[in-house]
């Protein structure tokens, strides 16, 4: 009973953070954008959901509004920095996340300041936490599948090939008439919208929001998921999300059985940090490598080559 509840909870978390990891994969993996403020858009989605649901707005409208607001803010914040190098964007968005957390923390009338505010759940409690969590898994994974299909289709379309071209060589992409700022802004909006959606799901699942849930560490955790699983590989992003969540839970369980000389929270962050540095040093492509581009033309070429080879060997 307890164990199955725990596993269901874990699955919900994997689903929610899977969506965020996919959105970062779209931005960083495919387009080469350094979004160091993912948590800002996650926060916008969560707080929008919380405030609208308190007013009695139906849940799908709350989720859609949260995602749209996140997209709009994503565009506004990224616009000044998109023309510039990757580091300017990283600093600007990181700063934006900190400011946003400061605002929800100081403005007590908005959402309860430090203590946060309760959120109306979508699914009423019917006497069993298992059913509540199963319902949430259904909703979260429906959203996850939609996001996965969107990102997967985008990545394997001509649009996705332009994104990879921009990532590899901005100047070459511009020379071919592809406006890098336009594509980057679109990707940043879409990525932020997905993070906002995940934020809404997160808020309604936990049934409360408070500023402490949106520390910079959240952004960093999502980066670990993408770098571990494999940038520019959507299956990798999901694998990373699952592994990081399982690892975090695993250390939580382990503390009950092993006496540790240091605080577990600190140990977890230290291990995550070391893991990331080692990954960057020894396997920057992640566990799953970037999948090759599939197009009809490439398939024809490959088939042709194989046919010639077969002929030669006969």
């Amino acid at each position: 009973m307890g164990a199955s509840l725990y596993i269901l909870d874990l699955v919900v978390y994997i689903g929610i953070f899977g969506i965020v990891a996919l959105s970062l994969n779209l931005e960083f993996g495919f387009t080469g954008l350094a979004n160091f403020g993912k948590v800002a858009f996650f926060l916008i989605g969560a707080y929008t959901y919380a405030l609208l649901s308190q007013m009695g707005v139906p849940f799908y409208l709350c989720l859609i509004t949260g995602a749209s607001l996140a997209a709009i803010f994503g565009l506004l914040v990224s616009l000044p920095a998109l023309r510039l190098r990757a580091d300017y964007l990283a600093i600007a968005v990181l700063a934006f996340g900190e400011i946003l957390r400061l605002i929800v923390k100081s403005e007590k009338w908005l959402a309860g300041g430090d203590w946060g505010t309760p959120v109306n759940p979508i699914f009423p409690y019917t006497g069993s936490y298992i059913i509540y969590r199963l319902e949430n898994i259904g909703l979260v994974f429906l959203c996850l599948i939609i996001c996965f299909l969107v990102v997967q289709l985008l990545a394997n379309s001509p649009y996705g090939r332009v994104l990879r071209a921009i990532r590899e060589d901005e100047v070459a992409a511009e020379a071919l008439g592809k406006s890098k700022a336009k594509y980057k802004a679109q990707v940043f909006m879409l990525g932020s919208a997905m993070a906002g959606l995940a934020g809404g799901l997160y808020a309604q699942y936990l049934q409360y929001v408070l500023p402490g849930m949106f520390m910079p560490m959240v952004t960093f955790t999502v980066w670990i998921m993408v770098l571990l699983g494999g940038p520019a590989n959507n299956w990798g992003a999901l694998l990373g999300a699952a592994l990081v969540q399982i690892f975090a839970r695993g250390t939580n369980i382990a503390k009950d059985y092993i006496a540790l000389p240091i605080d577990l929270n600190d140990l977890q962050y230290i291990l995550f940090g070391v893991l990331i540095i080692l990954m960057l040093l020894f396997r920057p492509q992640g566990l799953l490598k970037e999948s090759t581009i599939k197009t009809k033309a490439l398939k024809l070429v490959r088939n042709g080559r194989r046919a010639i080879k077969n002929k030669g060997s006969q």
Partner: protein
Amino acid sequence: MTVNWAQVFFNSAITGSLYLIGAVGLTLIYGLSRFPNFAHAEFIALGAYIGYSVAEQAGLGLPLALVVAFLITGIVGVLCYRGIFQPLAKRGASIIHLMVASIALGFVLRHSIGAVCTWKPLYFTAIGSAFDFGPLRITHLWLWLIFAALVLSLTMHCLLMYTKIGKAIRATSSNPELALASGINVDRVIWITWFIGAGLAAIAGIFLGADTAVVPLTGWNIILPIFAVAILGGIGNFYGAIAAAFIIGLVENLGVVGLVALGLSTTYRIGIAFLILIITLIIKPQGLAMLFRRA
């Protein structure tokens, strides 16, 4: 409400001095290694803790604390460069990978500090007593801070302009290939800059910790204004950083007066640095560097 303008300007000088000491290392390292080192915040926190243990726990006083923190944190900075960033750069890591690695390093350092020293805030005992000078309220610590900023500016000016290593730093910063071709030992230049930069961060950490409290988040709390100084001043530009530090110090303190007048929370003072950062990115991403071409 009457505003004590003399105090506002004096506070601006204090804030500016602190940001200057904190940001010089960041901007020099940024200019040479070509990525923003987010772990700079943790060099600041590390300095605050070393300073606390020397000045308070060992009772050896502030001047010795400054020296010891400078040396130890400087060595930590060099080790981080040698152990993480240099190998990464050699493997052809992109700027994004370097930034992520620096954030990861920041988490390792911050939580190591938290694990060793606990997350309870520590407080320095006040150095001397506060006194009034005309309309001004002054503490000895603040005078020390302004003095330290002056010494730093003069020393760095002489170092960058008149010594061989300073000229090599400037040359490498503006064109690494040409510097290498002219026989400058670029590797040595970079690690010396990491040493100086991390050491200066530690000094900023001691002043910040002594003025407020020493916590593992000491550095992270001022990372925004420090990055704003580095960007407004022009990345890698020492003289731009001096101007930017005092501009941001002034605007921030004027902003606090404005926030109080508007009845808003003064915790938003950190938002002012963010605004300056965004405005700089929109209007002039290269910052004030064009005013200081020689540097």
